[in-house]
């Protein structure tokens, strides 16, 4: 009987799996230096940018795809991927009215109404959105409002054109072009993404958000996000993602870099809901992402919060390099895997400065026949006196066919360090569900209640609007998946 409930809910469809019928401008599959040159040309990039790409590409050619993660999948054939796909449109968009209505409808369907945002301009609204569709940024809202405060929030392509000095200065600082296989690939072929700069002493007046959508088939999405928080500034940034339901595996290899100057704080939240594949493990997104922040100067703070429910395979370790003295790094994560999903995710906290502190709270939930791994590194370098870390890694199992794994690495080179690590594994039992049922709470609600209780510490870190969304998403991803 419990199995029936399991079946019923696992068969639940991915709600965001539709395809937008839109004419697109797309490269033929294949990757070589001339493809990269065409891409760069198409984007009208300066010479230094092309050089950055080519250097990354040449390095990438000599790199091997990492195999140490606790995941197994068919490696993508990089020659079968199209490295550029953009909705066909007029060159410059003066206003939202010129955006293809099909595109607006797509974002509308995803619950992100760019139209609504337009109507609300002038009225109070607290989220500015950069919408990225396949390879390009479609529209960034609220740019003018932000500009009044000196905040730059635009697509990466625009930033390259309009703020080349900033891009040149910071790009590759946290994630060098040759950092790892996927970061190198991204550095060579990235097509767009978001750029954000908060000037000195400015508290960004609204949440900034990028919404990534993969639409075209046979493509990969390689976006780059660069966030720079200048001295004494603050910004809260959110990223959301979905993709159509397809039998093929699509590659998403993004790079996110955060730079925090003196006394600056950046809060980066992700709700990742890429298509996870069907219940037999067919299709789904490969989510191979490099996210890293540098607390460059004293008293800075970078905080990553992620709710990962989608993707067939996830390989992702949002990290913080704590260079400035008294800087703070945080990582709060909920990773859910169901059916055949595989996730190998965690963080790295690299303590370099004095009195640096880091906190890691990771909540893994595995259901179906999925595999969920936490992999984390806490490194205290010599001279990082009085560094502190607290890590807590909990795993929740639903049913008896899934796996939860923890790979914590701790390297301490300074005697004054205090590092704590706690880990627990528990199981949602039929006993808990029956107990809820007996109090009048049905199984779906019960699972939502139990899982949200388990993830509370992390969900509390999300901005309000998204916490509600994340709670719903958790319930949908897991409903009844108890065997």
């Amino acid at each position, binding site marked *: *009987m*419990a199995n029936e409930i399991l079946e019923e809910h696992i068969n639940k469809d991915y709600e965001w799996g539709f395809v937008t019928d839109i004419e697109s401008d797309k490269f033929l599959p294949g990757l070589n230096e001339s493809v990269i040159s065409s891409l760069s040309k198409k984007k009208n990039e300066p010479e230094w940018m092309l050089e950055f790409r080519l250097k990354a590409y040449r390095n990438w050619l000599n790199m091997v795809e990492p195999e140490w993660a606790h995941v197994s999948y068919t490696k993508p054939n990089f020659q079968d991927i199209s490295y550029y796909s953009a909705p066909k449109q007029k060159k410059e968009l003066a206003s939202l009215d010129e955006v293809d209505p099909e595109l607006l409808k797509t974002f509308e369907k995803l619950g992100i109404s760019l139209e609504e945002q337009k109507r609300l301009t002038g009225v109070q609204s607290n989220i500015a959105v950069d919408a990225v569709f396949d390879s390009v940024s479609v529209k960034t809202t609220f740019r003018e409002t932000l500009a009044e405060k000196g905040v730059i929030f635009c697509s990466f392509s625009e930033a390259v054109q309009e703020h080349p000095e900033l891009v040149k200065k910071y790009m590759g600082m946290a994630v060098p072009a040759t950092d790892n296989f996927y970061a190198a690939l991204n550095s060579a072929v990235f097509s767009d993404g978001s750029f954000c700069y908060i000037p000195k002493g400015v508290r960004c007046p609204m949440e900034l958000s990028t919404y990534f959508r993969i639409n075209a088939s046979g493509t990969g999405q390689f976006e780059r996000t660069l966030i720079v928080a200048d001295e004494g500034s603050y910004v809260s940034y959110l990223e959301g993602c979905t993709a159509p339901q397809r039998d093929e595996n699509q590659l998403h290899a993004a790079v996110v870099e955060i730079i925090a100057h003196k006394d600056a704080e950046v809060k980066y939240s992700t709700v990742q809901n890429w298509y996870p594949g069907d219940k037999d493990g067919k299709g789904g997104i490969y989510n191979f992402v490099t996210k890293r922040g540098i607390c460059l100067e004293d008293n800075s703070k970078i905080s990553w919060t992620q709710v990962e429910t989608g993707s067939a395979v996830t390989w992702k370790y949002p990290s913080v390099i704590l260079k400035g003295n008294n800087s703070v790094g945080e990582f709060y994560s909920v990773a859910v895997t169901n059916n055949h999903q595989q996730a190998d995710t965690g963080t790295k906290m690299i303590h370099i400065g004095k009195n640096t502190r880091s906190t890691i709270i990771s909540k893994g939930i595995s259901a179906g026949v999925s595999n969920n791994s936490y992999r984390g590194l806490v490194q205290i370098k010599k001279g990082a006196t009085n560094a502190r870390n607290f890590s807590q890694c909990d795993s929740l199992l639903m049913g008896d066919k899934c796996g939860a794994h923890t790979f914590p690495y701790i390297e301490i080179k300074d005697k004054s360090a205090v590092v704590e690590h706690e880990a627990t594994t*528990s199981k949602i*039992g*039929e*006993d*808990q569900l*029956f*107990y*809820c*049922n*007996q*109090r*009048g*709470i*049905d*199984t779906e*609600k019960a699972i939502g*209640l*139990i899982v*949200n*209780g*388990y*993830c*509370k510490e992390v969900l509390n870190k999300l901005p309000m609007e998204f916490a509600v969304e994340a709670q719903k998403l958790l319930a949908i991803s897991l409903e009844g998946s108890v065997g």
Partner: protein
Amino acid sequence: MISIKNLKASIGEKEILRGINLEVKAGEVHAIMGPNGSGKSTLSSVLAGREDYDVTDGEVIFNGKNLLDMSPEDRAREGLFLAFQYPVEIPGVSNINFLRTAVNEIRAYHGQEEMSAKDFLALVKEKQKLVELDSKLANRSVNEGFSGGEKKRNEIFQMAMLQPKLSILDETDSGLDIDALRIVANGVNKLKSKDNATIVITHYQRLLDYIVPDFVHILYKGRIVKSGGKELALELEAKGYDEIKKEFEIAE
């Protein structure tokens, strides 16, 4: 209130309930006693709708409705409450949040609006007092890190909050010291009214000193072999279960 006719249930191949007949009316307290393995907990589980058991025969009518056709949550929403012998822990979910969800689910089932936070908290306060529950416990995660006595008291607190028509107390006395037993029993007695009914399942007569039953039934090998008034419990306590076993062994 509830009418159980020829109820048979098994787990796997093994028949545990072998034709239970029981009639409980509003305002009554029934005690079901029996030795270990007689089917006491099975009976409460089957009535609450636990899936581990197959009902193979019989009928249960609860307030005019066929109980066995209902899901466990609908049985609860119709007013059947089971105080668990081993209350379950739910980490991270506060007692208050848990109960608020339960109360509102039950209200929704009856077409009523959600209870406002203010009314709900007032109700919590009132019922907490009734069962002498420490207000700290109400804000802690459901049963997590509670002592045995606190768990049982929490069951009675939930019962008070949900105001069921029929409460089944499954070995609520097990593991309680005499003070906890008195507090739990007091709670149950205060909640008693002419409109609700209680079935007390117990191994020992002790609890029945505090919750005085109108009827006592002796369950043995899946059948009610003897029924009587409260004096039956005393008789049983004096003679022990061996006497019963001897008496009914042959009749099997």
